């Protein structure tokens, strides 16, 4: 059974409008961005879209822009660009940690921020990052543009809020101010594998080490990327200590509902949500205290 995709019609979009129009008119169409998740799925026969809309030629969708109120990441920004960006490494350690742990350097050369998010696999790393950082997802569709909260964006495994003829064009990350720090920890069977469990943690603390805001996103901790909201709100107003982190990581664990699979039994994954949340928050705190680094 050769691992080869079923036939599909192929078309190239040169603008967002054109992409939306094509997605709207073509039957059973799918966006082709980096293709690093979609193409393997098509080869393995998981997915057989009748038509692909290649958005790679669309100009100006590959950017990192922090000139405004938030860090704007173009949907076509390659993961490798995040890995190599000084801005991201310096000011957004959570994103940088995660980018460096996505698949391998070759996949990262093509894989895009938008694609990683829209694929919405429970095992993808960037959805958890978006959840932890309360990102906004900017989508364009035939009915115009809308901005969605990351929290609402991830509906189910491989399922987002995007309509079939909608295209994610940009992700907006609240700007990291002084006192902000983040970290992404990923437990893997082997480097480049999907996470056994991954934890994205983002903290903002004042000069006395009191938590102003907290964000926690979980990878492979449920059938979809999830946000540990209770843990987040519990942290706010607390001055960070080992006990506080213990409680927070317990709440994060309680929010998780992982599947047993070849990457480990559910009870192990639950326990790891706790361990990794504690460690990620700890590192995020250190970074927050140490300023932006």
């Amino acid at each position, binding site marked *: *059974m*050769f691992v*080869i995709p079923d036939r599909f019609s192929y078309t190239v979009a040169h603008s967002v409008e054109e992409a939306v129009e094509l997605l709207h008119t073509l039957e059973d169409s799918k966006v082709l961005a980096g293709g690093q998740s979609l193409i*393997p799925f098509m080869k393995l026969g998981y997915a057989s879209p009748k038509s692909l809309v290649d958005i790679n030629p669309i100009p100006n969708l590959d950017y990192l822009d922090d000139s405004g109120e938030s860090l704007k990441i173009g949907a076509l920004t390659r993961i490798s660009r995040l890995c190599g960006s000084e801005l991201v490494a310096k000011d957004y350690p959570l994103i940088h940690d995660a980018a460096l742990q996505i698949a*391998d350097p070759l996949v990262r050369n093509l894989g895009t921020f938008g694609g990683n998010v829209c694929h919405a696999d429970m095992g993808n790393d960037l959805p958890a990052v978006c959840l932890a950082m309360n990102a906004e997802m900017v989508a364009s569709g035939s009915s115009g543009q809308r901005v969605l909260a990351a929290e609402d964006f991830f509906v189910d495994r491989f399922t987002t809020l995007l309509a079939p003829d909608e295209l994610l064009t940009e992700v907006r990350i609240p700007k990291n101010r002084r006192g902000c720090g983040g970290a992404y920890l990923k437990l893997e069977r082997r480097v480049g594998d999907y996470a056994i469990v991954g934890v994205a943690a983002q903290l903002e603390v004042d000069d006395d080490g009191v938590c102003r805001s907290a964000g926690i996103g979980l990878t492979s901790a449920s059938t979809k990327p999830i946000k540990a909201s209770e843990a987040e709100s519990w942290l706010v107003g607390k001055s960070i200590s080992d006990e506080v982190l213990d409680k927070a990581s317990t709440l994060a664990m309680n929010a998780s509902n992982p599947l047993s699979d*070849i990457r*480990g039994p559910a009870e192990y994954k639950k326990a790891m949500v*706790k361990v990794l949340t504690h*460690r990620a928050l700890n590192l995020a705190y250190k970074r927050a205290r140490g300023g932006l680094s």
Partner: protein
Amino acid sequence: MTEMPVIHGMGSAVKRKEDVRFIQGRGTYVDDISLPGMVYLDFVRSPYAHARIRSINTEKAKGAPGVVAVITGKDLQPLGLDWIPTLSGDKMMVLPTEKVVFQMQEVVGVVAESRYAAADAVKLVEVDYEPLPVVIDPKKALEEGSPIVREDKRTNHVFHWEAGDREATDRLFEQADVVVGQDMYYQRIHVSYMEPCGCVAYYDSVKGTLTIWMTTQAPHVVRTVASLITKIPENKIRIISPDIGGGFGGKVYVYPGYIVAAVASIATGRPVKWVNDRSDDHPSTAFARDFHMRAELAARKDGTLLAFRVKAVSDHGAFFGDANPSKFPFGLFSICTGSYDLKAAFVEVDGAYTNKPQGGIAYRCSFRVTEAVYAIERLVDIMAHKLGVDPAELRLKNFIPPERFPYRSVMGWVYDSGNYAGALKKAMEKIGYEELRREQEEKRKRGELMGIGISSFTEIVGAGPSHTFDILGIKMFDSAEIRIHPTGKVIARFGTRSQGQGHETTYAQIIAEELGIPIEDITVEEGDTDTAPYGLGTYASRSTPTAGAAAAVASRKIREKAKKIAAHLLEAREEDVVWERGRFYVKGAPAKYKTIQDVAFAAYTNPPPGMEAGLEAVHYYDPPNMTFPFGSYICVVDVDRGTGEVKVRRFVAVDDCGNIINPLIVDGQIHGGLTMGFGTAFMEEISYDQDGNVYGANFMDYTIPTAVETPKWETDKTVTPSPHHPLGAKGVGESATVGSPAAFVNAVVDALWPLGVTHIDMPLYPWKIRRLLEEKGYALDK
């Protein structure tokens, strides 16, 4: 006297001759071969592990664009090719006619003009299955009333095999002060060569010749078997094993793809290419290990080891296909007394059929030596801990001492040479053993988990002496044919087949050493049954011990004739002629000499009166005994009490494979073997659920180590030549895969021993270790 040319003989770390093509993308692997009019074969595979085939409908597929032929088991039946013999005297299905016996089994072959057309047509074949109860656990398979995998056998019991002296062993166990025992499972793994199996088959109906370019480690045996089952005369069958992208034992087997491709070529008159995709190859080709054992070791309280016994069940899947020597249904497991001077030992193994592909690959393990070494090295460690003795000390106390070689083990093997204490002491020195033990003590006080693991293995390779070793009756010699051209250049052909071991370089180095001809002037060829002398092939670390020896002996035959010619040229009596690497001269007058090149020219232009012209020799080497490489490995690990992850901090490997031909290549072999052992110990496993679904069927699910987690290996050597091998060499291809798994497991168990952990089955997944830490109340939540 003129300068000797640099010839790169024995011991030279010369870079490899074969690399010139590989680094330029000019290697020729099976999938690189393309013939005019070639078509592609793809397979419909069974989603069921065990099911009766109600019906197969191929009409839609036959009508699909580009489809040339569709082949089912019913088509093979009249040819007597629906089943074929295995290397173990059992038989295996090529394509099923009645039922399927494992998931992803080949069911229907579809031949089409392109890869893509074949893949499309495969989806159009309709097979109606009636699911049957599945048996996955080999122990359950041997119980009464278990579903029967092989109706032709009417039982799931494959064989019962015993070695050693049961009574003597039991007696020593009764007398012993201390007895330790452990149930262990050596999991099912896949060799995971980077190049999946495949072939191009072409039947020339005019010449009546069948040529198959195939991924095989043993082309000659394949040709003979193919001739016997197809009745095509052996001179009309040509098996070519081109460049092979790794074999490790997995490419000794004959898979359905080869047979169906050949039949398809005969049926269509066109060349047929079949190449497995990874997701086909992993779940359908043969597996290694899958071995459930109960091992026990008896000792006196002073630490003298007395006796060893093992009772085991091995899982062979649906067909008994192990490529074992005929007299050894369970390979050379009886080497299990290892490096120790035991008084008695006994082993019994029962083989079982299950709903899995055939198992029992000699995966870089010289026929079950890996399982044997794992068993004894784990038990010696458990015994040391039980006695409260340092594992190194217990080993040193019980090693076979150097002066006892050649040493006859209680299992009847005669070890050729060894200095086990020498290797272990060197490893301990190199890693700083005492210091590490001190560090471990301090860490334990601080609640940190650090472990040190030792494995002092003895290998048995180079099968093998004809009085004991054959495969399907064919004696396990191997061959070399060396011909020197008039200008002194050499073509040498062998019955073995390199899959990355560097034969083109090492064989050339042996010939260079023996004849004084630079390796640049020596061309080595293997793998074409029309040109190479008959040989059993490359597996079980046998190439250097057998074919390497053949190269030396054939070279010496040539040298004898060369000496006569030299005497004629030097106008001297033969007994006055002296050989010095690369030249002959008359005793006492070294200035007047003839080079081997002069002699070669004379062999064709001016041979002595009455002498047959030419300068060549063939030798089929029948080894007098096996060779017994050995070594000591020490591994240091740190265990994360939160995640259960293990970090291999250091790993020192001291190997002894006798005299070394090329140190670069020996290092490479050891690095690769260690990495495979590392993968086995920590991440590799093919598992099945109760419905027979296979897990780990591709490189996404089956994790082999990358450069990141692979430890930075530290290697060293001792040199204890083999007394009976012409070069004093022993073979090293498998030492590291055989020796290392026990070192990793011993290290992790050593770390956890204070908590009362005596054993963990491989792979040492973090979740298994975390579970133990939780049970012992030692797990951390951060």
